[in-house]
């Protein structure tokens, strides 16, 4: 057994123990903290699998935004916990559930052990076409050139999710401010952190976005960090989310996907296919699309965590 596979084994054992903890923990908050730790271990696992772009995404979303979302939710739902315990299914049902789960896991494990040799791969095809795009990061090229349709639909799905969250607002506060009002002492430590960290975080976010053309990184990871910094400002009571009825907000939320669609359909005329780029312009157009998606993604991800409108005015 090599050193690398021993390290992988340790990681796997830790991942599974923490995952099991999030399932069996008695208190929801304890399970949620376990889930944050689990997200962190998972991003190390992605580095061990040489998927650094994925590790960046998991680090930003999995242990950053998801953690805040779930910690907030578990705190607000804490009073419902006691009522739920009598609903716990009996030993027989749990046993059957365990049996079914074990069978599914066993089936997947069997398919893992019988994966085809040699493994199918699209890497040579990507490598062959990489020079024609002019970007160094193959994952960015896949996201915006070969699988552009996925990325386009994704940027729309994220906005749809936000519309879904907003539509849960009661009529009374429709168009109001998302989430509860945050209070913090303007001279306290939280406010200090809220002033010191965001400038640094914004630089890191823009850096991650900027290097994404040639090195691991990109708009999703960068936008997540920017969204997190905005949320930090909100939690420190220094910034408030805008009311969702603001026109500029709504324009920015759809601007990125709309521009992507426009460039995509322009490709039908200039390059012979929807979402194709004319020769020589691929790099420029990809940069334009990424830059346009950044504000949309930043706003959407932050407002998804902030939640549905709950207040009509400051107070």
């Amino acid at each position, binding site marked *: 057994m090599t*050193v690398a596979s*021993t*390290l992988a084994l*340790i*990681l796997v054992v830790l991942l599974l*123990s*923490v995952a099991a*903890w999030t399932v069996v*923990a008695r*208190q929801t*908050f*304890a399970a949620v*903290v*376990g889930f*944050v*730790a689990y997200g*962190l*271990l998972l*991003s*190390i696992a992605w*580095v*061990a699998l040489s998927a*650094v772009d994925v*590790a*960046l995404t998991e*680090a*930003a979303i999995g*242990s*950053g935004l998801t*953690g*805040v979302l779930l*910690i*907030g939710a*578990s*705190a607000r739902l804490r009073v419902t916990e006691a009522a739920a315990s009598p609903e716990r299914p009996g030993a027989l049902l749990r046993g059957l559930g365990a049996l079914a789960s074990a069978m599914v896991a066993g089936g997947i494990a069997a398919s893992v052990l019988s994966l085809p040799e040699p493994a199918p791969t699209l890497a040579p095809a990507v490598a062959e076409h990489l020079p024609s795009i002019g970007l160094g990061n193959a994952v960015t090229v896949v996201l915006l050139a070969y699988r552009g349709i996925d990325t386009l639909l994704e940027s729309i799905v994220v906005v749809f999710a936000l519309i879904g969250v907003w539509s849960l607002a009661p009529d009374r506060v429709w168009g109001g401010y998302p989430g*509860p*009002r*945050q*209070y*913090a*002492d303007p*001279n*306290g*430590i*939280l406010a200090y*952190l809220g002033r010191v*960290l965001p400038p640094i*975080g914004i630089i*890191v976010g823009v850096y*991650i976005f900027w*290097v994404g053309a040639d*090195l691991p*990184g990109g708009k999703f*990871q960068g936008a997540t*960090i920017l969204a*997190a910094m905005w*949320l*930090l400002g909100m*939690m*420190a009571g220094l910034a408030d989310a805008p009311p969702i009825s603001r026109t500029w907000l709504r324009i920015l939320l759809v601007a990125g996907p709309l521009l992507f669609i426009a460039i995509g359909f322009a490709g039908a005329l200039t390059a012979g296919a929807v979402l194709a780029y004319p020769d020589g312009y691929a790099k420029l157009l990809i940069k334009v699309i990424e830059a346009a998606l950044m504000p949309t993604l930043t706003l959407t991800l932050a407002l998804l965590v902030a939640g549905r409108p709950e207040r009509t005015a400051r107070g």
Partner: protein
Amino acid sequence: MNDFLLVAAGFLLLTVALGLVRIMRGPGDADRMMSAQLLGTGGVAVLLLVGAAASVPAAIDVALILAVLAAFASVAFVKSASPPESIADKEAGGA
């Protein structure tokens, strides 16, 4: 040398896993949060070690993201553990 770095990363993971027992034992929510904080710092160190050993320079960027967001979950915890007004009171009285 690279093996040393990987062994160090493995040792560090086991060490931090020891701290993870606090997530399970509690007793308070603050204890659980501390354990996650320790795992965050340890995770940053593991990423730096693995990145140096396997020559994955971008692992530093993953560590950078974790470092920027290290305070994030804890701040959410502190906010959720304090009733809206009390954090202002406490800080005014205590700080």
